[in-house]
Every structure is written in C-alpha cells, then in structure tokens.
C-alpha cells in the first residue's frame, strides 16, 4: 500500500515519559552471560579432557585444592572417572542449546498466538485463551515426564516438552500487551488507510510487543534450565553420557557427604547462570519500559 510509507512515528517504541536509565547497568550479569556463551561456543578448546571418557580407577577424585586432588583434574572427577571441569564446560553447551531451541520455538508460537488472539479478539480470542488455560492447568513437569516416557528421553523431547509448557505463558502475556497496543492511534490510522489485518499485525503490532517478548525470553531462560534439572532428577532428562548440568546435580545428590563437588559445582553453575539471566531480564525490562512491571 502506497500510503503505508507514512512517517515513521507509527513504529516508535520510545516511551516519552521517562528517559532511559543508563546508571545501573548490571555488569555482573553481563560478564556471567558472556562467559557462558564463550564457554559454550569454544567448549572443545577450553575443556581439558573429553567429557565422556571414563577412567574407573580415577573415580571420585576431589578438586585440586583438596587433599587427594590433583591439577590433572582441576575440579575432580565423577563416579565413572570423567573430568568434572570438562563436563561442566560441555554442559554449558547443552544447557544453552536446550534453552535456545526451546525458548525460540515456544516463544515464537506464543508470540504468534498471543498477537492473533489479542488483535482479532472475539470468538477466536475466546477459543485460543481457553486452550491457553487448559495448557496452563496441566501440570508442567507432568507434560515433560509423559513425553519423556513415551518418546524416550533426549534433547528433542525436552525441547518439545518445554515448548509445550511455555508457549501458553508467552501467549497470555503478549495478548495482554496487544490489547493495549491495538487501542493506540497509529493502529486506528493504519486501519483507516485500509491496511489488511495481517499487515497491521506484522508491521505495527509486532514491534510494539517486542519489548515484552524480549523480557519474557530472558526471564524464561532460567526457568528452562531449572525444568531440565528437575526432569533429570525425575529420571526424564537428557540421558548419559551427554553432560548436562541438571543431570550432573541429580547424579551427584547421592554423594553430598562423600563427594560434595559432584553436585555442588554444577548446582552453583546453574544458580549463577539463572541469577545472571534474571537480573539481566529485570534490568532489560526497566530499561525498555518500566510500565512492563506486570510481566
């Protein structure tokens, strides 16, 4: 539509009320997240051993700074003699991969459905929201368990399970945002100009819910990592020998008194990463638009 090339004010997302707050940048979070990404991407270069190579006689060695430890295995070994540091490093890869795939698929589906439901309204909205309700009522861990048990545990299953769990959350929040956005002037203007609904949704609505979407993404990374850990505890996580932090904590829980490093180190990694992403998400939300406090 020729008239679509109207002034750019349509797609502004700047909030006129408050200036951006640059003062309290979350440096710690930035650093942790960067380290995580670097470690995950360059895992083969950073790890000292193969994460799956067993050496039974070397099992359950403590970290280097404890008595009985050695610099050969800086963070000790697990119950099959595998190097813990290398498993942590490769585990970062696994956690990030799961989070990425799961969040993207679940998030995008939720985004799409939320926009359609919010914008179109009426019957469609009602039906879609009922489906969302039904999904939210279903016990989350149970969905993942059932899938793991019927499809076999593995990366694909976990991604599928998490997708099923989070799309509904995204959809609900995005829909709420869309309800607000669609009353704005530029949307009415676009309609008056005769733009199709699809075009309006894609070009005008989407950018304006992007803030919410980004915040939701970052806030859910922690959730995904924790869900993966809980599934491993229940025996439905990513199966061995692939190292995953959640599985490592689950495996190490029988040894808290005798080999604390098995569960404590991956547990600490999980906590740090989730903490970092949450603080980052909080900051992002404040930075983008403090009105998003409902998210």
């Amino acid at each position: 539509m020729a008239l679509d090339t109207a002034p750019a004010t349509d797609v502004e997302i700047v909030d006129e009320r408050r200036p951006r707050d640059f003062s309290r940048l979350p440096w710690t979070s930035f650093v942790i997240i960067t380290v995580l990404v670097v470690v995950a991407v360059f895992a083969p270069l950073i790890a000292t051993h193969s994460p799956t190579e067993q050496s039974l006689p070397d099992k359950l060695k403590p970290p280097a700074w404890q008595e009985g430890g050695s610099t050969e295995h800086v963070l000790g070994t697990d119950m099959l003699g595998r190097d813990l540091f290398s498993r942590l490093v490769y585990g970062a890869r696994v956690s990030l991969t799961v989070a990425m795939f799961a969040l993207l698929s679940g998030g995008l589906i939720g985004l799409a459905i939320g926009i359609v439901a919010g914008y179109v309204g009426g019957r469609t909205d009602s039906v879609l929201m009922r489906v969302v309700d039904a999904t939210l009522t279903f016990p989350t861990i149970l969905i993942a368990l059932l899938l793991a048990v019927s499809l076999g545990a593995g990366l694909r299953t976990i991604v599928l399970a998490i997708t099923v769990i989070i799309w509904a959350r995204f959809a609900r929040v995005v829909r709420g945002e869309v309800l607000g956005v669609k009353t704005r002037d530029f949307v009415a203007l676009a309609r008056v100009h005769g733009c199709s609904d699809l075009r309006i949704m894609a070009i005008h609505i989407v950018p304006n819910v992007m803030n919410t979407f980004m915040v939701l993404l970052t806030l859910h990374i922690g959730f995904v990592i924790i869900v993966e850990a809980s599934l491993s505890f229940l025996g439905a996580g990513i199966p061995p020998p692939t190292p995953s932090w959640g599985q490592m904590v689950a495996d190490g829980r029988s040894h808290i008194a005798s080999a604390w490093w098995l569960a404590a180190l991956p547990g600490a990694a999980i906590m740090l990463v989730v903490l970092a992403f949450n603080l980052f998400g909080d900051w992002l939300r404040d930075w983008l638009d403090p009105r998003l406090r409902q998210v």
Partner: protein
Amino acid sequence: MRISIHLVLVGAMALLALVAGAGPATAQDKDTLVIALDTLGAMVMDPIADTRAPHAHYHAPIWDSLVGFDLEKGGIGPGVAEKWERSPDGKSWTFHLRKGLKFHNGDPVTAHDVKFSLERIMLPESISSGAAALRRAVASIEVLDDHTVRVYTKGVIPHFAASLSRAVFMEGSVMPKKYIEAVGTKGFREKPIGSGPWKFVRLVPGDRIEYEAVGTPHWRGTPQFKKLTLLLVPEQSTRIAMVRTGEASIVSIGPEAIKEAQAGGMKVVSVPGTMQAVYQFWGLYRPEVKGSPLTDIRVREALSLAVDRQQIIDHVMAKQARWPLPFTTYRYSIDVDIPRWEAWAKKALRYDPARARQLLAEAGHPNGFKMTFWNTALPGTPFMVQIGEALAGFWEKIGVKVDMKTVEWGVFDPMGRGEQKGLVGTASMYRTAGRPEPSPRYQTTLTSSGIQHLLGDPKECPAVCQEIDKVYEAAVSEKDDAKRAAAMNKMTELAANTWVVVPIIEGMGYWAVNPKRVGQFKPIPGRHEFGDVAERMPRPEQKPWN
C-alpha cells in the same frame, strides 16, 4: 474488602494445615524397628494383590510361607511345612505341617487353610507373580488330615516345593480360611490376619505400614522389638539422611551410596546373591541380521573378554559385588555343579583385551564395528545404568563404536515382547533375580517358547535352539536326581558357550543400618528383602556391631 477475603482464605488453609498435619510423628523410641524403603508396591494387605518384591517386604511379616528358607545358605528350608516328600511317580507332593501354629485371631493353622490358600492364589483376580505358574502346575489339592496336605501336579515337576517358598515366589502364603470366608476379601484387606511373627496395626496410604510383634515365641524367630514400621521414602538421599539422624533404623540403598552411608558412621549390610547383572543379544537367529558382526560367536566372546569385571566390582559397585557364576547360577542353586562353574567363570569371564582384539581380527573386524546397546535398569537396581555405561566404555576401548540408548524400564520392557521390533540385532542390559532353581529363567530366555527366546522362536529354531529345548525338557521333568543334575549342567554349558547372554557381576542387596537402633544381624543369602529377617534382628545392646 476483597483483599481480606483472600487473606482469610490463605489463613484458613494454613490453619487447616497445622491442625491436619499434627498427625502422629515417627515413633523414634527404642522399641520400634523402622525400615525405610524406596517402594511399598501397591500397599494392599493381601498376598494375592501384589508382586514378588513388595510382598517380600511388607506381606512377609504377617504371613508365613508353606516352604521356608535355609537361613544359612539361602535357598529353601522348612516353613509351615516341616517336611515334604515327592511321590515315587513324581506326580504328587505331600506336605507335613507343624503342629500348634495359630493365626493372629487364635484360629489354628491347618491343612484346610493351606488348601484354601493355594486355591486362592490361583484365582483369576490374583496378580501374585507366580500365580500363573501355579495354575499350570497344580492339578488338584487334597487334605489328608489336619496337618497333612497333598498336591497333585500336572506332570512331573521336580522342584515344585521350591516354588512354594518365599525364596522363589510367594505362592506358599498361608491365609486363614475361616476368617476370609467370614469377612470377605474387603474385610480381609482392611483387617488382615496371618500366622507370622508380626501383627498388622495400621496402613497410612503413601506413607507407612505399622506392625506389632505377637506376644508369643514364633518358629521363625521371636521379635526383639515391640513394633515394626515400614516407611515409604522414594528419594535415596533422604533415606540416608533419615538413617543418619536415627529417624530410621535401616534403609535400602544402592551401591553408589555405600561410601556416603559409611561416611555418616552407618553400617552397610550387603546381602549376597540377590541378582546378576547381565547383557544379552536379541534376535540374532533372525534371517534379517545375517550379516551382522554380532552373529559371529568369536565377536561375542571378544566383547566379553573386553570387559574388566573386577574394575566394575571395585569401582562401580564399591567392591560390594562378586564375580559371577554362569547365567542365572548362584552359589545356592540346586542341581548345579558349583565348583566346576566357579572354575569356569574365573577363566572364561576374565579380562583379556589382547585376546579380544585378536578374536575381532580373526572374525574380520580388526577395526571394530558399530553396535546398538540399550542401557536400562530394572526396578530396584538403578546401578545397572552405570554398569552399562562402563560396558560401553570398555567396548569403545577395543574399537567397537557403541550407540548407547539409555531408556527407562517402562519403555524398554514392552520392546522385548512380541516381535521385539527395536531390539533385533542389538544388545541390552538385563538382570536375573536370585533364585535357587535356574530352569525357569532358562525357559524364559533361551528356549524357543520363552518370552525372550534369544536363540530361536517356534518358527525359526536353528540347531542350538533345538538342543537347548531338548535339554531343558530333560532338566525339568527328569525324576532321577543324578540324571537331572547332569541335564542341568549340560544346559548351563550349552548356554554359556553361546555367549548370547553373558553375566557381568553378581550383585547384592544393600542396606544402611544405624548401629544405635539395631544390633548386628545376618541376612538370608539371596533374599534382598527383610520381611523374613525382621524377627531375628537383635537390639543394639544385645548384639553390638563390631
């Protein structure tokens, strides 16, 4: 206003919680023996309503078995029946019961109760593990007098008496005829009575079962504790916490937790001969896997030689496991020449990677090959998964590429039935439970009519499959003891030489014990569960741990 309503709701729930939750706390007193387990099965107080292992945990205290245990060696011994004999034609068994036994309500234990019990176990709604086998075996039951019972079998079943022992199944549970006929099944399950050393007190669903000792001496052993409580605690680290704090006297653990338990000052009791971890190959006789390396017996032998069993025993099982005997053979097995097979096992199951590589090269695979391996753990023995991982590691070392698929038992088990679609041409972990008689397991695994039929099925039964079928028939129906023993040993030899089902280690049942709450006791070899041991556990001051 709306806020206060909600606050009231939350507050009300919290109040309700405190009131409801102030239930009876665990009796931590010295008179109660507390055992925490990871499963209590269906928690139904009726021997015909649950399967073997849970029965041995929580039914055994209340109900006696017709045939009992050899407390020293494991295997069978006198039970409610003091002695029994098989008729000359081999088709009937006469059991002579002890005199003077009483049920918890005072009724005497007679042959009528035994007949009633056996028939009850064979009822269609019974899901006890060996009910089907019993139905196949029993033709009729006759009461000769108050203390003598005769069972007629369909055909000759050399070790029928063993199947009535809790060492094998729980088919021999003696239940009270008059009582059950009076109150019906529902009444029986609500207020169960038996003739065992412990009486039923209470069952709290999902939480625990409480028993108390009968006041009089008992032939199984007179309980030294006034009460017995079985707790359901599914999480192992929690069980260890409970035994350390003294909330439990004894808890079940896996071998990986042994160090953990000892670190806390607990004693570890390992019951020998409770199971055998094995790996096996499926459907190798099928035409569609003809070209596979696994069909070559040299390859299979090589795979066994590549496994360092001693390392698995020392490191995966924390030294709490033993060198195995042949498949499904234990030191208390009947009809088997133990010394011969001990010697065989030392040599044939040794660690010899050089010879393994040699065999692989001879078979035409000097650079190894690819193989699919299903790693799984049956209920109660989660350490099988670690053993499977160790196996894969050993095979990788001699050049075999292992595609390991770790699956939950509930997913793997159905695959092994029917067409065995996903399993043909692959290997998997498996296990066999400790029983004094090897033949039932041979039937299941190696004969053509068995559910696993690893060597051949009724449609496709090559030479070795037919030989096994023949020898099996001889082993189970031969009346003459010497001939039967010979057949049994022949079957063991045939099975061992196929290298299709290979023992890895002989495992144990592991328990952590708080020495301040219970004294030193001796478990029954081959019997993981303590349902028949609780009455012989002493108090800590009676027999302190050394």
